[in-house]
Structures are given as structure tokens and as C-alpha cells.
């Protein structure tokens, strides 16, 4: 899931300064799960902005709506009848959602209310950690399901480096050494011989931005 955090209220205020009518648009998928941009969080931000406007003596209209996903056209259709009357749309989706919204409503000002952080997993209530760097060439089969591209600070594919210290990383003592984790996991599953495999230099070409992917099932149709 994509993990994001809300921008500071000052940043958001600065973006919508002088605007009279703003629509806060939430996204009901990833950012709703990471408690950043779902229906509840939209309600909180909209209430904050409304109250701040009144307290500072410049009342404005802050409306709110949450769609299932902002990165799919069919869900953005629901907004068509609403958006024209607003000075700006304040999107609480990840960067993909914000851009898609801006693209879909070409003549509207679309502003981001969150910072997109990473692709991660929930460690516990309210805690997420990065798990995937979207390197487009997964080698988790080689490394016991632990990603050296993400967990290793140095992205080492042949580790550990000389800086591993009792299972911790030399770059940041709070972080686990990915290669110690990989070694322990391979030991558990009886596949330590995989440590001997030398990985060739990483091919970064698939990571070239911006990525584009057409599903095989649709490739033929696209050609026609």
C-alpha cells in the first residue's frame, strides 16, 4: 500500500490563501488505510480549515467529498458535476491521485494536501515501514523475502558490507542490517547456499521514469 502523511496546516493554508471555495477530495484506498486521506481525515482537515477561517475572520467555504480511488477515471466521473464551482480542489490522495485529478480536470487548480512517502506495510497500529522500492526487477526469491533494495541503506545486492554491526546498520544504528536479516532467514529455511550466489550489477533501466505498463491481455487490443 502507498503510505503518505498529511502536510502541515501552514503549508496547506499557504496554498489556499485567498481562496473562497475549496473542495477537499479524499481517496478511499491506500491513504484511507494509512489514516491520512480517507473520509475521516478529509472530515478532520475540512473542519480544521473551516474553523481556522472563522477564527481568523475570513470565512470561506470548505466542502468535502471522498471517492473510492483518485487514480481511476471511473471514480473521478462522480466529481464532474461538483468541481466547476470551486476555486481549487485540495486532494488528499497520493501523488498519483493528485496528478490524475489535475489531468482529469484540466482547467482546475488541484493542490496536494499530503506528502507521499513510500510503498509499505503496517507494522502495528499507526506504524508503517517501507517494504518495496518498486525497482521493477524483483529478486525476493533470492533473498528469503527480504528486500536488499529497500531495507539495505546502501542497496547492496551482494552483502553484507563491512559496516554491519551486530545486526544493525552502520549508516543508522536504529536500522536493521538487511543482509543479517537475509542470512538469518535463509538459515531458517535451509537455503544458506543462496548467500554464495553473486548477483550481477543491478539493471536500473526498468526503473527509468516515468514507468508505463500495458497488461499483456491489452497489448494486442492497443495495437489494433
Amino acid at each position, binding site marked *: 500500500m502507498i503510505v503518505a502523511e498529511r502536510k502541515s496546516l501552514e503549508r496547506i493554508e499557504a496554498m489556499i490563501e485567498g481562496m473562497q471555495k475549496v473542495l477537499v477530495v479524499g481517496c478511499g484506498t491506500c491513504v484511507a488505510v494509512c489514516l491520512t486521506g480517507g473520509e475521516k481525515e478529509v472530515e*478532520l482537515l475540512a473542519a480544521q480549515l*473551516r474553523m481556522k477561517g472563522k477564527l481568523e475572520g475570513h470565512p*470561506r467555504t470548505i*466542502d468535502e467529498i471522498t471517492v473510492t480511488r483518485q487514480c481511476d477515471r471511473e471514480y473521478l466521473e462522480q466529481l464532474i458535476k461538483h468541481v466547476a464551482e470551486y476555486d481549487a480542489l485540495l486532494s488528499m490522495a497520493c501523488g498519483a491521485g493528485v496528478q490524475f485529478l489535475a489531468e482529469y480536470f484540466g482547467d482546475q487548480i488541484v493542490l496536494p494536501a499530503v506528502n507521499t512517502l513510500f510503498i509499505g506495510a503496517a507494522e502495528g497500529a499507526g506504524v508503517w515501514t517501507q517494504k518495496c522500492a518498486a525497482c521493477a526487477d524483483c529478486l525476493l526469491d533470492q533473498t528469503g523475502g527480504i528486500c536488499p533494495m529497500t531495507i539495505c541503506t546502501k542497496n547492496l545486492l551482494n552483502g553484507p558490507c563491512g559496516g554491519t554491526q551486530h545486526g544493525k546498520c552502520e549508516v543508522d544504528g536504529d536500522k536493521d542490517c538487511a543482509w543479517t536479516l537475509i542470512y538469518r532467514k535463509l538459515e531458517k529455511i535451509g537455503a544458506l547456499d543462496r548467500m554464495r550466489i553473486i548477483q550481477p550489477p543491478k539493471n536500473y533501466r526498468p526503473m527509468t521514469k516515468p514507468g508505463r505498463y500495458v497488461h499483456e491481455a491489452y497489448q494486442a487490443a492497443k495495437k489494433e
Partner: protein
Amino acid sequence: MRQEKTAGFEPVVVAYCCTYCAYTAGDLAGSMRLEYAPEVRVVKIPCTGKVDAALLLRALEDGADAVYVAGCAAGDCHFREGNLRGKEAVAYAKKLIAEIGLDPERLEFFHIPASAGPLFAERANEMTARVLRLGPNPLRQTRSQPAGRKLVREPDPHPPLPQTKSGCLIREAKRGTEPVEPIKKEAKQ
């Protein structure tokens, strides 16, 4: 133990009370003929774990001068840890209202066990006294000014799992207890 009122200010204090503890304590305070601040509006809730920051902000936006949530004593929650969640929600909401310039003291969380009638009255008086010190909620005068709302969303035309109009999804299908007979192929002659 009534507080002195400032001229023309009738405070509105909303108390979200857990039915198992604080609300029962309120009942007990009544049975004990304890007098407590009449400005407190008690809202009975099934568990303080249900309280979220949006609910608290909504009360303040609608003009309440103070809002407090009263739940079970630590470790005594009927639903194991609802009171701790309620406490977290209040702490978060305090941060949110501080950001916009409202005094975070307008929100509070109290632990009030069911047997503590006098404590219920004490907390109600304490919160009312606090409001009298802080003064009226500045949002109260402007609460009737429209400032936006939640737009009504049409039913999702593409829900993640559509309801079928005929038959049912395989995972919702009832399974028979009898084993299904395999289809016998007739031997070719």
C-alpha cells in the same frame, strides 16, 4: 459547589460518557443526590473507543465550549482497551485544535469508574470551571454561518465487489454437506 457565572455566558459542555463506567457513575451521582454543573450535556456512548477526533471537532465546530470524554479506569475497559483508544483520539484532537488556534484545554479525557459518583460530579464541575476561565468558544457566534459541508456522493457505480442481480457470488454460496458426485464419463463404445 456551583461556579460563579460571568455575565451572559451560559457554557455548553458536552460529555461523551461510556455506558459501562462514567454514565453509570453519573447515575450514581444522581442517586447520591450530588449536585453538579447543569451546563454539562451527557451523551451516552457504548464505549469511548468509538470516539474519534472528527466527533470532537464537530462538537467544537458546532459551538460547544468544551468537550470531554469519560471512560473506564485504565485496565478496566469492558472492551479491553477502548478507553485507551478514546484517550488517544482526544490527545490527537487536542493537537488538531491547537493547530488552528483553539485552546486544547477545551478537550479532555477522564477516567471515571462506575463506582465513582462523587468523581463524576467533580469532573463535571472541573470542566465547567475551566470553561468559565477560558471564556466562550469563539466559534459559537459564527456556528450558523455556512462554511461548507460534506457533499452527498452518489452510490458507487463501480463498487469493488458488485452485488449480483441473479444468483450469488461463489464465496457467499451455501455449501451442501453431501459430497458432490463426480461426473462419470460414459465409456466410448
